[in-house]
């Protein structure tokens, strides 16, 4: 829990900044039977990122990484919109799209666990090829659909709550159940913490790894449906572009180590919210558009640094330590072979 303190503090700080510039920032109203307000917008627009980041968290916990989720977002939206534009039912379209995503994720997992390709390379293949696949599905065009049922996924409301938020809540709850109530979380952390020891303890790490990549792709697929449904169109080129990087960032801000091992779903959600709030903040405090990315980069760098215990030690305790003891770490690092 303690490691969630810093991300939470950053989020509060960002929100406070917004309140300072826009006093009505925190107010939530009901208009036309829908919840309405800046906070709701952050959740609603952040929903796809949160979904992708949840899947990414599990992948990173096994010591891997998935660069292909952005392409999977595009593929899922493209296939669903294509089906609907060809008069398929909503259920068929969604099932086909998510089924394809599961297959693609299993492919990633097979490359990593079955063949032993480094995750960053294995998923880079689908990151590049997936964009092509998405364009193949859309025929290089932007497919627009006019289906109120499909529009519901990303743009609809359920009991005044935007439906995207409901989906995120459900996926989060299911993931938390699978990993924390069932034993999946412990086995994932074990594989990520020490793969060889896990194998010798009898864990079928290959199966776990394939499952985790498939799950990440499934999450990306749902996010893809959400994004394309929100705009009622599928853009093979730009849907989900660079979302994998934001997702990785969210996971890291949330305190999960890129080296694998312990992971925190709550941390990841906080991380994704920080990123989304930051985007909102940039608009609300009037940062010039051309410096937006630079501003974002600076804030993210600051967030990452403030979370590092050794950085805090250096900055905040420098004057207290009159004589710094010489670092004795060098000696222990080198191991004979």
């Amino acid at each position: 829990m303690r490691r969630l303190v810093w991300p939470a503090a950053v989020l509060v700080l960002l929100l406070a900044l917004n309140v300072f510039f826009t006093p009505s920032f925190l107010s939530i109203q009901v208009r036309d039977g829908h919840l309405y307000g800046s906070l709701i917008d952050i959740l609603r627009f952040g929903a796809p990122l949160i979904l992708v980041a949840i899947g990414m968290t599990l992948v990173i916990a096994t010591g891997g990484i998935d660069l292909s989720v952005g392409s999977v977002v595009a593929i899922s939206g493209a296939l669903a919109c294509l089906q609907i534009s060809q008069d398929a039912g909503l259920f068929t379209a969604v099932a086909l799209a998510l089924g394809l995503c599961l297959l693609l994720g299993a492919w990633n997992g097979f490359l990593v666990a079955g063949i032993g390709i480094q995750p960053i390379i294995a998923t880079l293949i689908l990151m590049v090829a997936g964009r092509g696949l998405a364009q193949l599905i859309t025929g290089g065009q932007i497919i627009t659909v006019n289906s109120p049922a499909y529009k519901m996924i990303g743009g609809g409301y359920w009991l005044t709550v935007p439906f995207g938020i409901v989906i995120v809540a459900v996926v989060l709850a299911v993931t938390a159940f699978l990993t924390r109530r069932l034993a999946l979380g412990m086995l994932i952390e074990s594989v990520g913490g020490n793969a060889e020891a896990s194998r010798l303890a009898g864990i079928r790490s290959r199966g776990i790894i394939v499952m985790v990549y498939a799950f990440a792709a499934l999450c990306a697929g749902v996010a893809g449906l959400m994004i394309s449904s929100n705009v009622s169109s599928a853009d093979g080129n730009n849907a989900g572009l660079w979302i994998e990087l934001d997702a990785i960032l969210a996971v890291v801000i949330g305190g999960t180590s890129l080296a694998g091992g312990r992971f925190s779903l709550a941390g990841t959600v906080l991380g994704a919210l920080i990123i989304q709030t930051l985007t909102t903040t940039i608009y609300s405090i009037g940062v010039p558009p051309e410096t937006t990315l630079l501003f974002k980069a600076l804030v993210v760098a600051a967030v990452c640094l403030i979370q590092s215990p050794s950085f805090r030690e250096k900055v905040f305790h420098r004057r207290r330590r009159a004589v710094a003891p010489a670092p004795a770490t060098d000696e222990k690092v080198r191991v004979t072979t």
Partner: protein
Amino acid sequence: MGEAAAVLTMKGICKRFPGVTALDGVDLRLLPGEVHALMGENGAGKSTLIKVLTGVYPADAGTVELGGATVAFGGPLEAQRAGISTVYQEVNLCANLSVAENILLGREPRRRGRIDWKRMRARAAELLSRLELSLDVSAPLSSCSLAVQQMVAIARAIDVDARVLILDEPTSSLDADEVAQLFRVLRRLKEQGIAILFVSHFLDQVYEISDRMTILRNGRLVGEYPTRELSPVRLVAKMIGQELAALERLHGEHKTFDRPLVEARGVGRAGAVEPFTLTVHEGEVVGLAGLLGSGRTEVARLLFGADHASTGEITVGGTPVSLRTPRAAMNHKIAFCSENRKEDGLIPDLTVRENIILALQATRGWTRPVPREQQDELVSRYVEALKISPPNPEQLVRNLSGGNQQKVVLARWLILAPRLLILDEPTRGIDVGAKAEIQRLVAQLSDGGMAVLFISAELEEVLRLSHKVEVLRDRRLVAELPNDDRLTTDVLMETIASGGRA
């Protein structure tokens, strides 16, 4: 050959790391034109001594004299410039570069700032000819055999007027012919007046090549001996450090075992251990004795399915089984506590509780979690029974001491109630109290009908616990000795040293 002739003298070297004294007043002297073996069990301080010598670590106390002048190197590069070159066990070369590039990397002959390829190839060929090797020096290193790569590393090492050549386990990945080839090269270098420091776990090789040896034990100097005057038995005794304490055998009466549990017939793995035949009966403790690198761990890993056997057949309770994965072995109720608990045992980021139930959870699969009450009950029972301290199941296992970590790994396997428990060095690096507890536990378990395969470098311990002892030497199972009154540590050492031929 007197003191004055020594090319290198180390005196009173001490090196402390936080919590351990790695070296305590060690002396070493190397004479020109000799092969000097540095002997000692794992953790005796051989590697640390080499690192102090080459400047990787600064010494806390003591002096190093090279050719009469006191020196203190800031790093391996400085040591190399002064004439001390090291070749490590794993070949530290770039397989994608050519032989010539590897030999002269960093000191390529240049002309007007550009590499003079012609001179470079000529120089490399000349260095190799000093080793009586002729190779195509422009071929990529990856096309050479491991032995040749080792020679290339040596050629690289002697390029800079080497006076001292350190070989750290140079033969561990070579076959017999390759070793012979390496030794021809070493003899040749010896004739050229180079002092060679040779580290190896293979006794035969040490006796074949070395002139004198220095023996270390637990960071202390045992002594320096001419190889001819020290018999293998006495060498082993000095390395292991025979304690003269009275041997208390935990198994008083001699039982007979007639129900074979696990039988291995002709099981072996190329490059790891020669085919062996071994039977473990129910309730029997079988000790595996042998020096480090003799194939003890390899035998254990084959019986657990951690590695695939390339030959032979294993039966459990009379039926042939295929142990292709640890999981398959676990299904036959075989458990394995590995020697290297940090790398192959614990998940440091998980808690004591999670580490203990990990194997049980693995056998159940992720969909059927062990209920929390059952976890807590199992864990608290074993934390208490094994006296794991601190007795806090939610502590991260990385924060425990070595002995307690070992108990956590033991507990993980004990809750599976295995029929065969393989313990690889379960008492290494842990304190005396924990050691005695683990030994008592092994005796108790076997009285309860569990078979135990017990691996330890400490012969007393093997004798105290085992009903029979299997002796390994140079990756071959050379003898099976019933543990009766005639079997003593001396007999065991004799067998280890002679390979069962005596």
